[in-house]
Structures are given as structure tokens and as C-alpha cells.
């Protein structure tokens, strides 16, 4: 008996009815069809949450409105006439001032409070996602398996607590910080769950206030709502501890990560 070709499989998947006799008699093709159907359905659900946010929608509509200002005609069709030579000369100081503003304003925003808040915002959002009960939970009791998992998913083994059975991962140990991939896991502590987020960003770039911890380590501290954040450098990465636990508990956790009792394999 010949099995279904790729094209026939697509027909069967789309309509179901064709090749029913063959599928009834051929377990291999039936299984293949079932697997393809499962992949198709999972692919659909994976993208179900990808929707345009309000900000993006508003930004796009604004741009479209700018491109189509009046009477349904694109703006480039109604380009303004060139200014006369005299007018252009008089406009020059204003143009220079505007150019200065264009350069200066983003730099000021980049260096000031909103960027600081954005780092804590994003870390708090990662923590919230790590605690989302809808996300699949991975909490292996096997330390070797967990370390292998991290190595495979992140490409490196992050610093882990002495007892890795205190560690759990929601969904995936990857998250995004400032549009870059970062590693994350959750540690159960006496003061509640704490997310550890491992970044390639420099400590200073987080924009949070830096100080010395009780142990003398250089740390950065921040907060977002009920969430506290403490960050410090461990090896090549910046480790952030995020949770409702007090700053000193987060600091102590990071200190323990930086000074493991025994070397990690």
C-alpha cells in the first residue's frame, strides 16, 4: 500500500474527508495526519497572544494620519514650496535650535528618571510573568538535569542557589530585557518567591542608585510598586533579584549566589 504524498496529506488535513478509506486502513498515515494536525493547532495557539498593543496601534494610526492629512491624499503629494532665499536665511537660527533640541531631548530622557523606572518596570514585569500560574512550571528535583537544562537553553550555567531544589522555572528560562534575551529563574525564599534575572547589561546602565551592601559589594537598588530590585555583578553578568522581599533579603540572596559554598560542576 502506498502512503499519502505530501500534497494528499495537506488535502486530508484541510478537509478531512478525502482519503478516508486509506486513513482507516493505514495506521502510519493516520498517525502522521494526527501529528501534523497537533502541530498546526499548537502553532495557532502560540500566536494567539500576538496582538497589536494600544501604544503601537495609536502610533501607527498617527503616522498614517500624518501621511494622509486631508482629503485622502498622501502628504508627499502636497509638498510645501521651497522658502525664498531670504526667508531660509532668517529661518536658519530656528532650524539650528530645533536641531539642538532634537539631539538634546532624547539624551536627557535617556539619562534621566524614565530610563531608571523602565529598568525596574521591566524587571517587575519579568517577575510577574515568572509567577503567572498559567505558564507551565518546570521544577526538577534533579540538580544535574536542571544544570544541563540551563546550559542548553542559555548557553551557560548561571549562578544558582546552593540547593537547586529551591529553584523553579515558569515556562521558559528565557525572558526579554530591553529587547534582548536574558536568563531567569525563581528561588523560593522565606520572604516569598524571588526572580533572578541574568543580564548582559552593565550594572550602571540599569540607572538605579548604587551603593555598598553590608558585605561591601557594589549593588544597585530600585523598586516598582511592591517589587524591590537589587542588582550586582557576578562574573560576566549582572544578576538582578526581584521580588516583594526587602532589599536586604535580596542583597543577601545575591551575595550567596556570588559566593557559593562549593564550586558548581
Amino acid at each position: 500500500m502506498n502512503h499519502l504524498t505530501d500534497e494528499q496529506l495537506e488535502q486530508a488535513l484541510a478537509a478531512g474527508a478525502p482519503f478516508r478509506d486509506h486513513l482507516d486502513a493505514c495506521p502510519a498515515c493516520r498517525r502522521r495526519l494526527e501529528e501534523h494536525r497537533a502541530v498546526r493547532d499548537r502553532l495557532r495557539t502560540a500566536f494567539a497572544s500576538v496582538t497589536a498593543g494600544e501604544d503601537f496601534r495609536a502610533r501607527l494610526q498617527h503616522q498614517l494620519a500624518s501621511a494622509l492629512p486631508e482629503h485622502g491624499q498622501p502628504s508627499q503629494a502636497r509638498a510645501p514650496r521651497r522658502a525664498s532665499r531670504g526667508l531660509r536665511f532668517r529661518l536658519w537660527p530656528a532650524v539650528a535650535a530645533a536641531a539642538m533640541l532634537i539631539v538634546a531631548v532624547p539624551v536627557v530622557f535617556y539619562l534621566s528618571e524614565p530610563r531608571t523606572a523602565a529598568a525596574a518596570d521591566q524587571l517587575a514585569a519579568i517577575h510577574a510573568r515568572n509567577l503567572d500560574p498559567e505558564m507551565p512550571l518546570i521544577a526538577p528535583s534533579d540538580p544535574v538535569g536542571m544544570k544541563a537544562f540551563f546550559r542548553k537553553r542559555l548557553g551557560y550555567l548561571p549562578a544558582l542557589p546552593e540547593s537547586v531544589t529551591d529553584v523553579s522555572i515558569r515556562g521558559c528560562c528565557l525572558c526579554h530585557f530591553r529587547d534582548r534575551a536574558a536568563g531567569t529563574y525563581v528561588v523560593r525564599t522565606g520572604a516569598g518567591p524571588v526572580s533572578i534575572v541574568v543580564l548582559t547589561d552593565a550594572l550602571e546602565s540599569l540607572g538605579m542608585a548604587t551603593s555598598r551592601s553590608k558585605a561591601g559589594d557594589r549593588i544597585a537598588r530600585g523598586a516598582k510598586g511592591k517589587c524591590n530590585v537589587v542588582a550586582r555583578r557576578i562574573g560576566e553578568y549582572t544578576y538582578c533579584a526581584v521580588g516583594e522581599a526587602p532589599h536586604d533579603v535580596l542583597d543577601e540572596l545575591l551575595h550567596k549566589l556570588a559566593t557559593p559554598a562549593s564550586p558548581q560542576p
Partner: protein
Amino acid sequence: MADRSDFETVAMPNLDAVLRTATALTGRRHEAEDLTQTTFLKALERFDSFRDGTNCKAWLMRILRNLWIDRLRHRKVAGPVASLEEDLLADRPSVEPLDWSDPADMLENFADEEVIAALRKLPDEQRLTLFLIDVEQLSQEEVAEITDAAVGTVKSRTSRAREALRQRLYEHARDLGLAGQRP
């Protein structure tokens, strides 16, 4: 020929679909939004060429694909952009068949981003074809027009792409201990 004042009513309902497709192509939210924005601006510019009564979603997808190809050409000159996720499901040689007794149940173990990352590993045309057929549910004829391919090519490409995605997810499941070797 469409009136530009209809753009909002005709094109904007497809915003989510275009963003999803851009996400499937780029794998990065920021880049997907940028590509979506460019697609809509280009679509507005060319809206005079859209024929009333035809599928606007398919028309937008064609613009999106052309813009994506332009970006890939530019990137070939500028060099690739790598991300950490892209290394997760690295290409590996085919392995023995695995035991996947309940496919739907096993696939539920993956996070959405893992499925999306696995899709990202497929070649561009395979990925776009599979996505438009399976997720956006466009017809094979529409996808053939969007991708400049014959309908037969779309059918076989879809099947091969889904098979490749199945294999990647399968191997990933085995690595995580969610599936075993098929007896």
C-alpha cells in the same frame, strides 16, 4: 480601484494578522512592529492599486513579504543579526523516530515562545508559507500568489515545513525528557 479614505476600514482590521506574520518572520517584537508599520505606510501609498472586493489581508501579506525580502537582501550586505533564542533549537542531524503517543498533549508542555522560536529556525519561504496556511488560514491559491509559487509547490512546501517543525519540537521535547525513543 480603492478610495484612500477607505484605507482605515479596509486595511486596519488586518493589523493583528500583519503583526503576527511579521513576528513569525523576524522573531523579534520590536522588528516585527517596525516591519508592520512600514507595510501599512507602503500599503497606504499604493492603496490606489488595491482592487475592491479582493482579499485585503492577502494583498497586505504580499507587501509585507516584499519588504521582508528587501530587508534580508540588505542584511546579507550588512551581516546577520543573531539572538540567544536562535541558538536554542540549533540544527541537528535527523535522529531516530521518537515516541509521541499523544501529540497534542505533549505540545502543550511548550511555552508559546518555544514554538515561535522553533518556527523561526525554518527557512524563510517555508516559514512564511506554513504560517500563512496554518495560522492565518489563507487558501493555497492565495499563498501561491503571495509567495510567487505554484499551488503544488505551496502544498508540498507546507507539508515539509510542518514536518520540519514537528521534528524540531519533537527533539526539543526529548531533550527536556518529555518524549522517549519510539519502540
